[in-house]
């Protein structure tokens, strides 16, 4: 009886994900597509939870449903017609796109079937469990992200930073938001502190329970976004100089630690065993702040005031509102 129910649940989740994904992308009305995409993110978070991956569920709920949702809803405002019709391909382009998609689907299907048929001599989870004691933390996800595959995480942080710089290159920031009424202010008053505290909790607890830098950073970014939505122009940010330090700090501290251990004779990013836990927490703290700043500044949609290249006092229309 129980296995039947589990199978039903799993089938329902899988079917829903496929259906929602398709509906979100294929929807000619952009507003509908965005809402369906947010719904997709929320369902994906539930699916991760079902697959016993709470770290992923946390990250998906925070980033996929929360922050991406806010970003897309903001982008909707710029498009007066909200019609997706113009972008649909026709003629030979459509045929080639369909062919490419079929090939990709075939490739993924083949890879999946091969993996299922021949699981290999040893599962990665077994290897991680075997070396977990040496990693400095007891949460296997954190151990993989910040220790065994720390190099990958370093590169991820660098990619985030590069993406933000790309957004900055697009132009000045969007205008801010109007002052919120009493209800929104009241919401901000208790929600923002809660978000910050929970972010800090997730950062701390990431060493031995689901949590970690990305999840904590996403919650902090949500707090900053909420402040900005309430009409506070500076939205929880420090001044421009400190912003640059915070943004650079994520990748910077990671690199510094990696290089520092080479001085003692170890490989790049090979932490000394006794110090692993402390080092991981240090790197994660700076990474959390950097991720939070990156996501929140990405929401602003452009260079905030203070980042402009020239400081000659040349005024433009957009600078008037700062």
């Amino acid at each position: 009886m129980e296995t039947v129910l589990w199978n039903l649940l799993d089938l329902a989740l899988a079917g829903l994900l496929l259906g929602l994904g398709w509906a979100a992308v294929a929807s000619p009305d952009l507003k509908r597509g965005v809402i369906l995409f947010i719904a997709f993110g929320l369902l994906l978070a539930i699916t991760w939870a079902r697959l016993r991956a709470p770290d992923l569920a946390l990250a998906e709920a925070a980033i996929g449903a929360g922050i991406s949702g806010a970003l897309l809803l903001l982008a909707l405002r710029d498009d007066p017609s909200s019609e997706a019709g113009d972008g649909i391909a026709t003629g030979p382009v459509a045929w080639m796109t369909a062919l490419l998609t079929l090939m990709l689907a075939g490739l993924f299907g083949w890879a999946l079937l091969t993996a299922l048929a021949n699981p290999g001599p040893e599962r990665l989870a077994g290897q991680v469990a075997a070396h977990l004691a040496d990693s400095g933390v007891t949460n296997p996800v954190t151990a993989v992200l910040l220790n065994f595959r720390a190099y990958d995480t370093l590169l991820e942080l660098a990619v985030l930073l590069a993406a933000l710089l790309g957004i900055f290159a697009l132009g000045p920031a969007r205008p801010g938001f109007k002052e919120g009424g009493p209800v929104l202010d009241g919401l901000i008053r208790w929600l923002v502190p809660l978000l910050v505290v929970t972010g800090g909790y997730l950062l701390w607890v990431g060493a031995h329970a689901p949590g970690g830098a990305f999840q904590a950073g996403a919650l902090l970014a949500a707090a900053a976004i909420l402040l900005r939505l309430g009409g506070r122009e500076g939205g929880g940010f420090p001044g421009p100089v400190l912003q640059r330090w915070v943004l650079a700090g994520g990748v910077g501290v990671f690199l510094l630690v990696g290089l520092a251990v080479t001085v003692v004779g170890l490989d790049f990013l090979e932490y000394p065993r006794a110090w692993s836990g402390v080092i991981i927490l240090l790197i994660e703290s700076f990474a959390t702040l950097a991720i939070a700043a990156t996501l929140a500044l990405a929401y602003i949609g452009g260079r905030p005031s203070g980042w402009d290249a020239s400081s000659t006092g040349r005024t433009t229309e957009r600078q008037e509102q700062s």
Partner: protein
Amino acid sequence: MTESDPLVLLLSFVLLMTLVLGLVRALRGPTLEDRMLSVQLLGTGGVAVLLLLADVMAARALIDVALALALLAAVAAAALTRREVDRG
């Protein structure tokens, strides 16, 4: 937490189906605000499903996930409804 009854598992499934029902509003609802209601439903319902799953799967961490989801639910509604200042 102990591995619990099939009843809680059944309730999780039923609740998930209820959320799917609410998604119809996202597909149909004439205005953006109507569709936003589906997101609201998924937020509250998602918290409920996560709490039920936390019990069935004996996974206490899912309660933390439910907490994070509850915190973020309001951000989407705020993002939808806030008005920007007029551009210069």
